[in-house]
């Protein structure tokens, strides 16, 4: 497959020590590190091509505009989307707010229903609560089962009960707190069966912040209306992300601009304004962050060179290895889906013992992270002790308070992966966890 040692060498930040120990960065669901190719692409842009886009006739402006358009095309291609469908924003949060302001405010009225789940990141809950306040629509939550999987039956029951009153379904593709991947294809198929006419079918918005870094994605094949992602979680710079919108919604003005100013206009008169015919420009008011777009395009190229199927398989090996290792610590309770993965790990161990090369493991519905609770020690204290051993993890509620309330968890510890992580990183984590018992006597 791919050579992780070689990949790791591409990330300058990872060669440092923390607290005198080798840095093991396992907080990738919060933000990923950046390869040299991304850092250099940003520097190169500022050193050679910086000027405002679409405004000047001079050569530098032309170079900058080329960099901007080529980067947009590269990023769109990563998601198998049309560049015209890609609105570059700051991050997933801004993308989801864009759906709220640019679509929901124009299309929802009192009595309409938005469906989301208790597993969502706050960024996929709070904007809808605000839409409810502005439009009088209602917000319904789908629950998760004991293993942390979306209760799709609840979702389908809600759809059958409320029919055409449901206007939007907003779900995370992969939970940032549990790693659960929802059965999106099944949900979309069911949606088509329940609503044969596209005009009455609820729009489906996917929070793809945790999916974009880990799984192959095809926006058109997914057959969804909105896809939100953050560049910084997929090896790109902070400050750039995207909202991909089904072209038809843009062409019919069902989705409208929500920020206004220069660049997005065709004509401005004191009596009024006509927006830009070019869909992408209509949604890009003001000077865009060209350098970050260039950096994100470089990140997309980097991931594509590795191959997203390889990236996913690498992730699955780490997820399964981590669950197997954590399960051997009595004080640790892994939360989120584990059952099918345990079976896979057992099979791999069997293969290992029989001396045969383990076959490629099937992909599970847990991607990108493994979260756990340490009995008797608060997650923040666990994370602090791990830090003293050079291991960076996330602790807290991970911006998923409704999920934590559902299960009665005060906080949890999350271990999350990227292409540069290895089983040795997980081993250092497991070793560091033993120190928690020493410090707290638990």
């Amino acid at each position: 497959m791919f050579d992780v040692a070689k990949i790791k060498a591409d990330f300058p930040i990872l060669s440092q020590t923390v607290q005198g120990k080798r840095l093991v960065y396992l907080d990738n669901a919060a933000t990923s590190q950046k390869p040299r190719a991304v850092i250099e692409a940003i520097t190169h842009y500022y050193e050679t091509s910086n000027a405002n886009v679409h405004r000047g006739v001079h050569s530098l402006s032309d170079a900058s505009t080329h960099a901007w358009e080529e980067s947009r095309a590269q990023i769109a291609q990563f998601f198998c989307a049309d560049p015209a469908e890609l609105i570059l924003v700051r991050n997933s949060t801004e993308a989801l707010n864009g759906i709220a302001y640019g679509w929901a405010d124009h299309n929802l009225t009192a009595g309409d229903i938005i469906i989301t789940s208790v597993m969502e990141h706050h960024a996929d809950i709070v904007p809808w609560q605000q839409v409810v306040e502005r439009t009088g629509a209602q917000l319904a939550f789908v629950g998760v089962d004991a293993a942390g999987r979306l209760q799709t039956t609840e979702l389908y029951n809600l759809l059958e009960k409320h029919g055409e009153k449901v206007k939007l379904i907003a779900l995370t593709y992969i939970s940032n707190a549990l790693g659960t991947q929802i059965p999106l294809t099944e949900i979309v198929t069911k949606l088509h069966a329940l609503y044969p006419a596209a005009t009455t079918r609820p729009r489906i918005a996917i929070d793809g912040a945790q999916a974009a870094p880990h799984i192959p994605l095809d926006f058109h094949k997914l057959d969804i209306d909105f896809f939100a992602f953050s560049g910084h979680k997929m090896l790109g710079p902070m400050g750039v992300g995207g909202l991909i919108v089904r072209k038809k919604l843009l062409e019919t003005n069902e989705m409208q601009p929500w920020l206004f100013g220069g660049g997005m206009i065709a004509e401005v008169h004191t009596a009024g304004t006509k927006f830009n015919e070019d869909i992408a420009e209509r949604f890009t008011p003001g000077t865009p962050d060209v350098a970050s777009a260039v950096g994100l395009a470089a990140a997309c190229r980097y991931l594509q060179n590795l191959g997203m199927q390889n990236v996913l398989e690498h992730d699955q090996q780490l997820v399964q290895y981590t669950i197997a290792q954590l399960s051997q610590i009595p004080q640790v309770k892994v939360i989120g889906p584990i059952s099918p993965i345990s079976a896979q790990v057992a099979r791999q161990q069997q293969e290992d013992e029989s001396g045969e090369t383990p076959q490629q493991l099937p992909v599970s519905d847990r991607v990108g992270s493994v979260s756990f609770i340490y009995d008797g020690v608060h997650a923040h204290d666990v994370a602090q002790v791990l830090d003293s051993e050079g291991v960076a993890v996330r602790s807290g509620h991970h911006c998923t308070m409704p999920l934590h309330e559902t299960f009665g968890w005060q906080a949890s510890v999350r271990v999350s992966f990227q292409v540069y992580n290895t089983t040795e990183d997980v081993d250092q984590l497991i070793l560091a966890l033993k120190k928690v018992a020493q410090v707290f006597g638990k």
Partner: protein
Amino acid sequence: MSQDLYQAVILEELQHPQNKRELSDAAVSVHETNSSCGDDVTVFLKFDATGERVSEVGWQGSGCAISQAAMSLLSEKITGMLVSEIGSLGQADLESMLGLQQPIAYGRVKCLLIGLQAVKKALNINLI
């Protein structure tokens, strides 16, 4: 940092928290939560006859070691203190009470301060 952070003083407070009890006849009580990590404390205060001095402190709560140890030490510290003196307590005082040699990490400031915030709210002192 954590090797320094979890010193005997913090671990002792965790094992044997001081004044951790509800005061049913408290003059004032305040419940405070730290949404970033789910810490919560409730502080109960009683005053002397002048009303200017805290005569008894009780508290209940759950959360991380820093929040609970800081609350425990604070409850002992402010017993018998003038309300005006409590108003001048801040982050540095708590760090020193916990025996920390350097300022606490940004991510733990809220944990450290939750107890003091509750006390100041109970005393109607403007929060820092």
